[in-house]
């Protein structure tokens, strides 16, 4: 919980909260319709809807309730599912913080993916090559990953500050370079597992694996993600650098006139954003999977964390607390999505569509208030403060 700084009155934005809930409900309704129409068995019952509507309605209800019950149960139904949600959320929160921090400085960081890949490469390399005592090994691997991501982000900041290269293009290209670098490294003897011809690394040492609580998937990574959120809050709201970041984001010319170095701020912001995304990569490389061991370094190791992070940051309005909540929502959808597949046998693509629908409705509040008019705030005002500096 980030207490409101200075003496601003704590105002709970009830209409925002209601609209967010309404958008999730709407997404679920559209998702339900999709489930009915995409299922041939249920659809066939609609063929004789007017002869015996009960068949179609019961089949639809069973389909929808089964799928959503699985989703909710898989996300928050007990200790195991909740910890799975946190495990899924942690890297998204870290990378989302990285993207959000850059937003605040007016930088659109599409490069969280590449920064996370670099973080994963360094962390995993330290994890399986060095053999150090417990504690130190993990610490060094995490720090290495942070630096890897920070380096990758820092390059972007430096290019932007010194040459004016647009960070969107540079970060996208750096994503490709990072992935290519990973693909290359995995064919070298330093990274490839002995005896294998495919691109896969050895398994990370036990000493470098993030410790987890027995019985669930709650591991150190989630704690690190929360700490990172607090650190970002402190940085933005309490520190001089944070003030500079927000000032540059709001108006770089004014900030420069006021004596702040826009170039320096840009480099620092991208460095920190890269470190946060790198932490997401560290979690992918060192966090224990369901089998208890970390996933070995391979091409798909970070999945699409870096791209989901953009959505998480937007959903969280680039604020630390918002990012944590958005990350948890996404983590819950990921964890519940698997249960929808395994328990209710809903296709993977449909769960992905459902996640996209929720984001779509949350990101389009005007649409939600149009569909559900009584939620419209009394005073007409734009929904949600646009992240300072906007996305331009």
């Amino acid at each position, binding site marked *: 919980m980030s207490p409101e700084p200075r003496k601003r009155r704590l105002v709970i934005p009830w209409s925002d909260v209601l609209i967010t809930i309404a958008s999730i409900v709407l997404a679920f309704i559209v998702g339900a319709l999709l489930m009915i129409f995409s299922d041939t*068995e249920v659809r066939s019952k*609609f*063929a*004789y*809807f*007017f*002869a*015996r509507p009960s*068949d179609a309605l019961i089949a639809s209800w069973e389909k929808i309730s089964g799928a959503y019950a699985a989703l909710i149960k898989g996300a928050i139904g007990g200790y195991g599912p909740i910890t*799975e949600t946190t495990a899924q959320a942690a890297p998204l929160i870290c990378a989302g913080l990285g993207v959000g921090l850059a937003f605040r400085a007016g930088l659109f960081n599409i490069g969280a993916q590449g920064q996370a890949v670099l973080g994963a490469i360094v962390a995993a390399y330290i994890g399986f090559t060095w053999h150090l005592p417990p504690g130190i090994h993990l610490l060094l691997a995490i720090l290495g990953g942070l630096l890897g991501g920070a380096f990758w982000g820092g390059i972007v900041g430096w290019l932007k500050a010194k040459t004016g290269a647009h960070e969107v293009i540079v970060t996208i290209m750096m994503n490709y370079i990072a992935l290519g670098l990973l*693909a290359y490294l995995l064919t070298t003897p330093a990274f490839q597992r002995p005896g294998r*011809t*495919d*691109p896969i690394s050895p*398994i990370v040492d036990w000493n470098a694996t993030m410790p987890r609580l027995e019985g669930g998937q709650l591991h150190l990574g989630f704690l690190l993600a929360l700490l990172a959120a607090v650190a970002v809050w402190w940085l933005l709201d309490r520190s001089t650098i944070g003030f500079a970041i927000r000032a540059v984001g709001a108006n770089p010319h004014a900030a420069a006139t006021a004596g702040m170095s826009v170039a320096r701020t840009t480099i620092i912001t991208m460095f920190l954003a890269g470190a946060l995304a790198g932490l997401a990569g560290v979690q*992918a490389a060192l966090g224990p*999977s*369901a*089998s*208890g*061991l970390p*996933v*070995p370094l*391979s*091409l*798909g*190791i*970070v*999945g*699409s964390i870096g791209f989901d992070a953009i959505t998480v940051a937007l959903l969280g309005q680039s604020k630390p607390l918002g990012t944590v909540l958005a990350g948890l929502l996404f983590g819950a959808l990921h964890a519940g999505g*698997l*249960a929808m*597949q*395994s*328990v209710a*046998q809903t*296709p*993977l693509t449909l769960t992905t569509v459902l996640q996209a629908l929720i984001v779509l409705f949350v990101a389009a509040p005007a649409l939600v208030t*149009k*569909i559900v*008019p009584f939620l419209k705030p009394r005073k007409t005002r734009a929904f949600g403060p646009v992240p300072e500096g906007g996305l331009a």
Partner: protein
Amino acid sequence: MKKSLRLAGALVCAAALTLTSCAEAPGTGGASAPPAESPSPTAGGAAFKACMVSDDGGFDDKSFNQNSHKGLLDAKAELGIETGQVESNSTADYAKNIQSMVDANCNMIVTAGFLLSDDTLAAAKKNPDVEFAIVDNNDPKTYPAVTNLKPLLFNTAQSSFLAGYLAAGMTKTKKLGTFGGVKLPTVTIFMDGFSQGVDYYNKQKSTDVQVLGWDAAKQDGQFTGDFDDIKGGQRTAEGLISQGADIVFPVAGPAGLGALQAAKASGGKVNAIWVDTDGCVSAETYCSNIITSVNKVMDVAVRDTIKAAKDGSFSNEPYVGTLENDGTGLAPFHEFDSKVPAELKSELDAVKADIISAKITIESKSQPSA
């Protein structure tokens, strides 16, 4: 606002009326026939549940996963068992997807693919009362000790040898191209067999047909890097075509579709040989460019394994599909039936017989050891 909503509602109703019509409900005519139930476990299969986890290609990859998945569906239709399935999105999903199938009370779990080998082995050790089968992997060092894990293997070097021989006999440019998805033993085994088939043809006919994209001696060649990158497959195939190849042999799952696109774009100059399933069935739009396919009959192996597990005769002994037991082979020529010379066809039959009788030996270090 309200009006537009009402209008939308009216539209939906109208659509419902036109689309759903007023067909008669099943069972309304016949006196007491109950409406058809969804496939229920009561059909004799008791509570046996067979499940499957895909790799990141998904069950619709027109290739490896899809064919294995067909085995699961066949088993469901034939044995009336319950099934479950989970598709993986990335490497990080494998362990938890397998675990989710264990949690869903599956009696037997089939994992599709070499990539899942670590996690399948770990899950099999952790859950001794669940029976596992993995398509395409066997580690003679660790697997025999795990009694609830059955490897399903395919000696596709044999059938690829035939494909290589056929391609060498069909090429006009004397150059053939091949490329893989990821450098896995289960991929390179095709390429080894293919290039040895070409070598054999060259020796028999004193010709000089070259294979581009795979160097069997160095065990290195061209790979797209993953199995999903159709564009990458197309680029790789175009690269091989520009070097003169007029028959391409993509061993890359869905990424290989890119090679079929490149072949189709050539307007008949370039053709392809598909792998895993009969391309004229799984990717029929490209049938006019597919000479034949190297079949890897995973569906039958998966179905038989599930059947054995249900009947209580599961064993962890590896299954190896060969030319002899029809676990692998060449698919029909379809549209090329008239274009492949009769002489070449009979030579292929002879070569096949020689491979089965071990008169021809194929050397690939990726070949499964039974």
